[in-house]
């Protein structure tokens, strides 16, 4: 399994070949609380890094999920529709959101695990 990279918007990215699997981090799911609904992007949609393309709703609030990379949506996790709690229980496993076929290279501002942990610590 390849190493995860992280965005400062609290998404994780796992790159396999030219396809990136993306979800939200454990820190993000913990801050959100119990997830009750997720609005996933359409298949085939072309997305730009930094664009809000999904929504995750907890009991308390709604939050945007951003595309951490530029490319095309090639798969979405339909299991989340019936079981959005997977985002809480398996944020970096069964709780993945979507897969993006990369257009170009990974953005350089993605963080490795240590840098992301340090970033989260700065948020208090």
């Amino acid at each position, binding site marked *: 399994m390849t190493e995860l990279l992280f965005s400062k918007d609290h998404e994780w990215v796992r790159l396999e070949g030219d396809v990136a699997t993306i979800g939200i981090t454990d820190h993000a799911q913990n801050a959100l*609380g*119990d997830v*009750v*609904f997720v*609005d996933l992007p359409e298949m085939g949609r072309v997305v730009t890094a930094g664009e809000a393309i999904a*929504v995750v*709703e*907890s*009991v*308390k*609030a*709604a939050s945007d999920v951003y595309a951490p990379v530029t490319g095309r949506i090639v798969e979405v996790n339909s299991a989340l529709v019936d079981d*959005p709690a997977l985002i809480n229980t398996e944020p970096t496993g069964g709780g993945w959101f979507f897969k993006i076929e990369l257009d170009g290279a990974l953005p350089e501002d993605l963080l490795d695990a240590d840098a992301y942990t340090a970033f989260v610590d700065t948020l208090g």
Partner: protein
Amino acid sequence: MTDSEVLLNTPLDALHRELGGRMVPFAGYSMPVQYPAGIMAEHLHCRAQAALFDVSHMGQAELVGEGAAAALEKLTPADVQALKPGRQRYGLLLNAAGGIVDDFMVANLGDRLFLVVNASRKHIDLPLIESVLPSGVTLKPLPDRALIALQGPGVAALVPTQLTFMGIGEIEIAGIKVLASRSGYTGEDGLEISVPADKAEALARALLALPGVRPAGLGARDSLRLEAGLCLYGNDLDETTSPVEAALTWSMGKRRRMEWNFVGADVVRDHLDNGVKRLRVGIRPEGRQPARGHTVIQKEGAAIGEITSGGFGPSVGAPVAMGYVAREAAGDGTALDLIVRDKALPAKVAPMPFQPHRYAR
């Protein structure tokens, strides 16, 4: 409220932190929105067993003196004078335009009235009440008392009392003298317990030590009250909304609706006689997507209202909401569209409460 302003702490602040409460600013206070269990678990636990909430931020006061009830009735259409000793009821404070200044609880303690008002409104309510008092009646704020809500079907067995629903009296819990009322804001049976601030932590610890009692935060309190169809001041009620529009006509006493001698009575009477343009209703969105406060409500493409409270109901297992719609769209089953992120989410007007009340009547 900005971060630079100092937040007030309740007498249970240290306990919240010890229990892992996630503290947030609310009405000028630092309050726990949830504990490590999370809003969903805290909500469901309240409906299954018993949950302890710190509501010490709410305003408590006493009204003392001959004619206290009549004086309060200048500001509220609730029948305060008919309230028997040991009984409590829900009421609304109104302004001259018939708008709701606050919703509150009033109890007859025999020699005085006991009031509980919203934290966000106490700085407005208390001077307003003070302004209508005749000589001989005094308003005494009780800033040195905490308020703890113990809610859920398990409470009656854990803290047995002689009180029935909306009964109030002095009782002793764990050796501490408290003023308890059999009421709450969750739709469940339970107690709201007023206790001197210096005894509050000891009381809370004693209650949390009872089998099945767990702490719950403001998040669960909000989802519980929404499922129970209960209003939150500032969301569902405000100074531009009348009791009739808010579907709270039931809180107005029959005698009061013959005498019409409260502030704003002419507007309220007009709303009752001639009907209102908008009404508060329950709303059930289809599917699982919640619609939050301020969501625009459409019917056949035209905007006809707005959601005032909305979220996911953990016990209902589906999104629930309340809001105001044009009167002609207020009938149960009316098909609506909720405009969530520029998309129409189908919904229907639905009866409240969404979760049946289980009060000990």
